């Protein structure tokens, strides 16, 4: 059983847009990642940065940086080394690590669908390390026409999928540790009953709405906060490639 001890959503319509991050240009990808982690830290949700892992996930990655650099190359324009340095998602993680002292496992992953499942799988692997007490999961996407083009190609649909700038993030920890340390537990995720993922290999299908899982999770947290619901919320029941899994969220 995992406990969620902090949650952040940044997105349109913006209440307060993340500010710039020194050394990162052109793209909102890195400022959003930075802002999510900053809010977790400033809320006191991160107990010890040196015992905290971070997983940064994105289906399309920093499409803005990749596209600006590619268009500049084709146009024969001078190439800004800052775009090189920020062209991999590690760079903003290095910036955050320096500022807050994260010295544990920091990983960047990408997926064609189910962000929540991929992230929780990795979190389960990392929690086996006794040095890891908490894990920050951050999913980020940026608005780019190319991403919409690719979405339409892969989803094989005429329904336009509109990309947008957003970041969504939670802090998870083992429930027993969260209780022992007196963390503010927002909800519990039951992943123990999550069926082993199996994939129907008969065809490749794509679901780039995979971040829905994280959206649903943060929305459910808000429901739990505002209401007196005491029953478990079946947070995410999702059919992907022939498989169905569910995550239960309880107060």
């Amino acid at each position, binding site marked *: 059983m995992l406990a969620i001890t902090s949650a952040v959503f940044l997105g349109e319509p913006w209440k307060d847009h993340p500010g710039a991050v020194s*050394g990162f240009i052109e793209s909102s990808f890195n400022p959003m990642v930075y802002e999510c982690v900053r809010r977790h830290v400033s809320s006191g949700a991160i107990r010890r*940065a040196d015992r905290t892992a971070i997983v940064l996930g994105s*289906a*399309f*990655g920093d499409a803005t940086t*990749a*596209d600006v*650099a*590619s*268009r500049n*190359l*084709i*146009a024969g324009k001078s*190439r800004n*080394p800052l*775009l*090189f*340095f920020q*062209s*991999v*998602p*590690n*760079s*903003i*993680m*290095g*910036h955050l*690590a*320096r500022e*807050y002292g*994260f*010295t*544990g*496992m*920091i*990983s*960047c*992953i*990408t*997926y*064609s669908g189910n962000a929540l499942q*991929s992230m929780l799988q990795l979190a*389960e*692997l990392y929690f*086996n*390390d006794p*040095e890891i007490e908490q894990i920050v999961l951050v999913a980020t996407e940026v608005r780019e026409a*190319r991403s919409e*083009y*690719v979405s339409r*190609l*892969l989803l094989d649909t005429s329904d336009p999928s509109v990309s947008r700038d957003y970041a969504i993030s939670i802090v998870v920890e083992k429930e027993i540790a969260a209780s022992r340390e007196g963390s503010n537990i927002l909800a519990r995720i039951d992943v123990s009953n999550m069926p*082993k*993922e*199996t*994939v*129907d*290999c008969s*065809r*490749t299908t794509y679901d780039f709405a995979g971040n829905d899982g994280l959206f649903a999770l943060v929305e459910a947290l808000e429901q739990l906060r505002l209401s007196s619901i005491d029953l478990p919320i079946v947070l995410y029941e999702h059919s992907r490639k022939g498989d169905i899994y569910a995550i239960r969220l309880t107060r």
Partner: protein
Amino acid sequence: MTIRVAVTGMGVMTPFGFGVEAIRDNILCGRHRFGVTTRFDASRFRTAYSAQSEFAGSMLELGFRCTEEALDCAGLQDQMQNAALVIGISGDYNALNAYWKHQQIGRDPGSGIVEFLPAYHSDAIATRFRIGGPRLVFNNACVASSNAIGAAYDYIVQGKVDVAVCGGYSLVSEEMYAKFDSGMAFSSDGRVRSFSGKRTGMLLGDGGAMFVLEKWEAAIRRKATILAEIIGWGAACDAYHVCQPHPEGAGMAAAIGRALQRAELVQSRVDYINAHGTGTLHNDKSETLAIKRAFGDYAYDMPVSSTKTMTGHILEGTGAVETAICIAALQNNIVPPTAGYLDKDPHCDLDYVPNVPRSKDLSVVLNLNASFGGNNTALLVGKAIER
């Protein structure tokens, strides 16, 4: 009971071509593969050199071929339904380049752009080879495929799957070349001279490696040929800088410590280190200090070399390719040299096996990788022997 993880399948390509024989006949002999880049017009960049292979296919086709060879080697082609697939790649930048070239002239860019998405590669590989278990795709730059092998190891050790296919790959592309050129990272003399006083920088190279990992006992039961053992791994972050390594190698030393701890090995059991060894002053100095910090006086008694001096930097694929080189070194009891070594750098005072390969009985070797953001991985690979 400790679960041991066997490597029973390997499909590898280096700039010298496919197969472990190409590693044995070139990298273990100290030959480099640098030359003028011909895949695109590199004349407008500060240098034109790279370590290209003769492979003419796409990145995804390279992934397919390495995976196919790994599965053939393991003899498990039809038993992949529950296997995990864990890869470390960047996506194909040629696909991105082609997309924008088409856009620029108002033509339909077609569907090739999907290959720029790393997850498309894992889905396509899983579909083609019917790999039906969980999938993870790491895109954390130069530690991506080491991270992938480490996660695949974790999947097996933690009992989540019985078999995992893992690795990574990369090809020299104009887009990546331009990025490193803008960062003024490239060598000016057409060679990578890691740990050497007269180094001028790094160069890119082609390569990829995919592995089949499974429980040791299961591999023995089915009488599989075990190529090597993954003994343990560790990762740690420098918390120092966006793109420079920690000046004293703190993160890499921590990653080494975690790997040794998980493997329950003392330092003196490590017979050779395949260093990240990019051939930049920052990396070489920091990595040398990390090795000293992690190994103490024993650091001076242990050969350390950079095979990037022969293959170039294979970016997201580098951890996987260097793991394959480590396996070849273990199988042949040969320490690959640091090729192109010219003179001593006062900051780098370990035994870097300059220019000439060395015969040594190898039981355990350590593969180090580092990336932007201060990420570091340490992967311990052992000879395929009963312990």
